[in-house]
């Protein structure tokens, strides 16, 4: 007997909205928890505890607002936006966050002599050291798998700024991880 294929996100969303189906919502959580938590881990500079608290808040907000999901974007993109806003709100409580400032410091000045051997820094720590805007762009385009256009929309910044953030972030990562060619 052929196994029944996994229901699509849209079917599960419909089941939750129409029948308050908690089993369907649990399946959505299991399916997307990895993406949401890894995005938030990057945004929270590797603070896994804070990231998981924000991930829980993300899914609770999704549960409350699922009826407003219009299916005009992927469910994961909608979820990413909630996660990003949860992080933004938390970050603003602590300090001002700058997302659209591409930064003035040239990338070549970023090699910090006080840092330990760059080769020993892992990617998570290197991403954590990026400025907010660049970290948010990397989280959106790689960990949430958004296109540059989707990321610009979700982050509320111009497309050109997203591209600049990505280029600068990769240059900084290259420098931090000691892979930059001399």
């Amino acid at each position: 007997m052929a196994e029944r294929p996994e229901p699509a996100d849209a079917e599960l969303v419909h089941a939750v909205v129409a029948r308050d189906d908690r089993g369907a919502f649990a399946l959505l959580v299991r399916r997307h928890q990895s993406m949401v938590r890894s995005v938030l881990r990057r945004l929270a500079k590797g603070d896994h505890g804070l990231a998981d608290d924000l991930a829980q808040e993300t899914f609770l907000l999704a549960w409350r607002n699922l009826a407003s999901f219009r299916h005009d974007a992927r469910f994961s993109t909608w979820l990413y936006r909630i996660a990003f806003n949860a992080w933004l709100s938390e970050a603003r409580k602590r300090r001002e966050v700058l997302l659209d400032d591409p930064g003035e410091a040239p990338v070549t000045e970023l090699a910090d002599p006080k840092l330990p051997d760059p080769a020993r820094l892992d990617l998570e720590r290197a991403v954590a050291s990026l400025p907010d805007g660049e970290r948010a762009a990397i989280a959106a385009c790689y960990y949430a798998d958004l296109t540059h256009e989707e990321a610009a929309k979700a982050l509320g910044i111009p497309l050109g700024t997203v591209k600049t953030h990505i280029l600068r972030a990769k240059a900084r990562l290259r420098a931090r991880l000691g892979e930059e060619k001399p």
Partner: protein
Amino acid sequence: MMNEQANDPIERLLREDSRRAIPDQGFSVRVALALPGAPRPWLRPTLVAASAAIGSVAAWLLAPAGTSLLQGFLDLARLQSQTPSALTAIALALAMAVTAVVLVAEEN
């Protein structure tokens, strides 16, 4: 352009890292327990039992003087359905039937 990206070690590292799944490790259960109005399995049976008890006591107290539920069922067994006791028993049976129908409808 695509080849350039594919050969970029940072690009590759980011792609590989983003594909690495985070194990659930109880996270989904944590979310399920935090959902508003999470199901409490003890609540429904308690409500049904309590309302049935209150209904029975009310039926007993409001039944015409001198009637007894036991007598009512005995009357019904003897096909005497017009006595005050029998009417009380019929009313109670109807109330229980309505409760059962409501519960079955909710279950479905």
